[in-house]
């Protein structure tokens, strides 16, 4: 049988998340002696097949339709359901991204089967699947029995390191007639809010808290972030004080981030902030208080006044970057 992975792409660009899902799908498939196949939707689906093959796709099912001209949750779900009905996979999986979860929810609704979102471990069991999934943004895990003729799962984003495993990647065109009505939820337009990396995707986030003292102090964080190709974030106290926009806020009620480096300047580390930043690979805290919450959670800390340390770091970065 088959583990069917839904490939995400935005006008031909495949996100890392899809490769994470492929990596996880390979493990699941191997445990069941299944093959990994991928479904790619829309006009660019054939062109992304090589990348999918590189990450383990034996077959890449491509589906084209006027209503798949761009992303649309209903059209995607209908198309995948048609394929599922045709090839009867043991599992349909995707990454637990906004689109991945949305499409899988639609698939499960149409198949009238269960859907487990943000899974970190799954295996076949006697009655179906034993699945471990994230709750509370990953603070808790839930073991569930998933009882369904086809397992619909999304794999938690950021929980798997994507690896390559070249496979055949045979492109197979699947023809399906999708009703025009599905166009009602297809993207009509896009607007760009900011260029380049975003807070959510930046490899480096330079963040300031109450210890910044005022809005003007963020200029040096902007400078440092730019030198490092990163973005500026902030704590809730900062947005409450009106020093930065809510869109810069890292936390439970702001953006959740997972950068390579999180440089936290003058942030004491209230829980609601930490929940948004805990996905960071490396945390460096600059704070005058060695006992502050974020210092105790950081891998590295400088216990000193950020107003002295940050300019020194900027100098040093400039020096080394030449």
């Amino acid at each position, binding site marked *: 049988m088959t583990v069917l992975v839904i490939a995400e792409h935005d006008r031909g660009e495949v996100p890392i998340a899809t490769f994470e899902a492929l990596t996880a799908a390979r493990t699941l498939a191997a445990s069941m002696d299944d093959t990994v196949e991928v479904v790619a939707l829309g006009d660019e689906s054939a062109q992304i097949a090589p990348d999918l093959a590189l990450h383990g796709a034996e077959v890449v099912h491509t589906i084209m339709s006027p209503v798949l001209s761009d992303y649309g949750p209903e059209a995607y779900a209908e198309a995948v359901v048609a394929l599922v009905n045709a090839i009867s996979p043991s599992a349909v999986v995707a990454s637990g991204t906004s689109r991945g979860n949305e499409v899988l929810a639609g698939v499960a609704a149409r198949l009238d089967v269960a859907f487990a979102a943000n899974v970190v471990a799954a295996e076949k069991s006697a009655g179906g699947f034993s699945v471990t999934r994230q709750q509370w943004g990953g603070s808790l895990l839930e073991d569930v029995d998933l009882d369904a003729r086809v397992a619909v799962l999304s794999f938690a984003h950021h929980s798997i390191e994507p690896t390559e495993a070249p496979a055949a990647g045979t492109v197979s065109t699947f023809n399906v007639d999708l009703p025009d009505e599905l166009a009602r939820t297809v993207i009509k337009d896009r607007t760009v809010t900011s260029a380049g990396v975003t807070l959510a995707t930046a490899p480096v986030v330079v963040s300031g808290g109450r210890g910044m003292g005022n809005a003007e102090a963020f200029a040096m964080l902007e400078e440092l972030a730019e030198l490092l190709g990163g973005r500026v974030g902030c704590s809730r106290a900062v947005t409450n004080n009106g020093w930065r926009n809510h869109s810069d806020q890292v936390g439970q009620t702001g953006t959740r981030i997972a950068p390579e480096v999180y440089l936290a300047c003058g942030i004491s580390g209230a*829980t609601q902030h930490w929940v948004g930043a805990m996905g960071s690979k490396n945390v460096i805290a600059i704070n005058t208080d*060695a*006992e*502050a*919450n974020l210092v105790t959670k950081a891998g590295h800390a400088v216990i000193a006044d950020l107003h002295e340390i940050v300019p020194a770091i900027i100098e040093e970065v400039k020096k080394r970057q030449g």
Partner: protein
Amino acid sequence: MSDFPTSASCVVIGAGIVGNSIVGHLAEKGWTDIVLLDKGPLPSPGGSTGHASNFIFPVDHSKEIVDLTLDSQAQYEEMGMQNTCGGIEVARTEERMEEFRRRMTSATAFGVEAYMLTPAEVKGHVPFVNEDVIVGGFYCPSVSVVDSLETGTIMRKRAQDADALLVFANTEVLDIETAPGKNKPKVTAVVTDKGRIECEHVVVACGVWSPKLAEMAGATIPLTPAVHQMADVGPFDILVETNQEVAYPVVRDMDTFCYERQSSGSMEVGSYGHRPILHRVDEIPSNEEALLTPTEMPFTPEDFDQQMEEAIELMEFLGDGEIRYAINGLLSLTPDTAPVLGPTPEVENLWSAAAVWIKEGPGVGRLLAEWMTDGYPHLTDPHGADATRFYPPQRNVHHVEGRCNEHFIKTYGITHPREQWESRRNVTVGPVKARTDDLDAFYFEAGGWERPHWYESNADLVERYGVNKSRTHVWDADWWTPISDAEHLHMREHVGLVDLSPFQVFEVSGPGVVDYIEHMVVNKCDLPVGRSIYTPMLNASGGFRSDLTIMRMAEDRFRIVTGAFDGGRDEYWFRHNLPGDSSVHFENRTNGTVTLGVWGPDAVALLSTVTESDLGQEAFPYGRVQSHLIAGIPVDMFRISYVGDAGFEIYAEACNGMALWDAIWAAGANFDLRPIGAAVYGTSGRLEKGYRLMGSELEDEYTPVEAGLARPKVKAADFIGKEKYIEARAAEGVAQLCVLSFDSLRCAAGYDRFPVGAGNEPVLTLEGERILDAHGRVSRLTTAGNAPSVGKYLAMAYLPIDKCEPGTKLQVMYQYETYPVTVEKTGADLAMFDHDDARMKA
């Protein structure tokens, strides 16, 4: 981060306002190697300090609380952490206005500027108050709002800068280890999740967590976490426009138990009006488990609705404010509302600094540092907050919760000084309570004991003696009855039986007992067997710690008798000072003893009918203790009197109590014997004789010389406070205890008032000026009451030497009116009745 230490002189647990203030003051007093721990992060580790509204109303009816508050305000001011915005308490009832008159009296006594306001004047200060719902206000310009977190940081930093302190946040105390000490377990180490610190002293300054920490060492700190609801409401243009944290006076809406405190653009509305919501310590979430902090528990809006409605009545614009933050904030409540300070009775060198409000924090820091350094504090005499004041039945969660459920609503309530508790009654009763019940005793609680205050069965005496039957003002009449004066007169004419079982009876014995007892008290105890002595017991400062009656029962055995209110403190002190070598044995005999008193002109005659012993003055002189049989019951009889008539204290085994009572009662039929309550024994009887009472006239601030209790000579033996006592004797007198009589009790409304004598009524000059002595101590009534046999209303007060002369005319303020008084007596003999003690020695 500093290396975690393995030893310290003192470990202070808890980095709230109290713990920080303590380390600051310890360092200032020269302590080094101090360690401050908290399980939460800094600067706000998650205790009650972090969510406090941080305002300070300095007026209180308790002198020690005012002392602590004023000292704290001075410290906040010195650190630049105080914003003096003023504060107004508003009244919605006439009853509250009377309370404001009492507050004006306290403010006058303790030197705090204050004014009574009309509703229009209140509106003048706070324009958004609805003057239609209030009848007046009490305005105190020195009310302030402070930054308690920053103050804590400064305190901590001062100790760190002095190289006296290491601070470890995010460090959880797992255990407090003890080892056998001199007389009881002594702290040896604090075990944390970061390591073990050996130490000499441990201070528990953990707020709501204190009972749990004390328990680790085997000690008790009787308090309970309780909810105080608070909501931040706003924003409002009228507040935003001020561009200040606090521009308007803090308003306390006393009759709805609410306050409104500006916080920049919004208003903090807090309430003590909801149902009591008590928690157990183990119900408090950890820092990690809590959404906000452990002491900011989830808001329960249904408990706050009524307060919201009432707040909107007072300040209509509040209704349109958004509720941006609302908590069930935890704070610490104790059974009697006072803090729990000083050494714990169970464990040596384990100190409590708990149940302290922001208004007292820095002062408590200084007080504890003094206590730990000098043996007893100087800032104020904290006997009302002393951690050792509670008896064992009062030190547990049942008592704490029972009392706190009762008094939570009184946080902003009006509590009469004589008011009695309803909860947790009849827990500790004497051996003859069945008999006093039969006589319709009305009980007041004395240190947890049920003590008859008067007997309804004596109601017939009111007519017989023609005493003043009523008091016009309800405040004067509360918790009072004319029966007491009638009982008094009956005892003076016939004979009375008093249940004295709440007396605290200690026995000390052993080969080292003479040296020990001489070391403890001022007067010479090494007397022949059968003699007794009344003596002060002093702190090292030379001030009163207690006054005691001591009887020599045998060559190596003394009986010590102290009052029901002081037993806990005195027992702690006696045990604390035991030599620790088993040469002296201490035993509290109270619970096994029945103590009855028989006094009056017919006392000797009556008792002579139930004993075959000769009770005549020759065989049994005044001041002697002898063993006899009464109706075949072995008793120790002590010929003494605190009431001014002849008679005896009679001690027996508790199991014989009923039979003893019955025998005396039966014999009393021929003498018109009546039961007499503590209102006579403790106030009117002793007041006529000018006898001093611990906690009223006697406290650490005053010396035996000033109290008129210095003997002609100082004994040879060394004793605690001797050096200071000798200094005080040699020094020129500054103040002296005096008896005053009221020339008139007539108030402006045309009827008589009857001052309570609760410690907050100031003595004023004829010009109305407050009277301070050369040491800055204020003259105030320490006791007041009717003297039925003298025919005057009397009071006691310390006066500066130049005002002690009998005949000096002064005034007393009571409920914000003044009454003329005359100095009657001063010095050693303050008796207004039976000046030469002829009746007592008859």
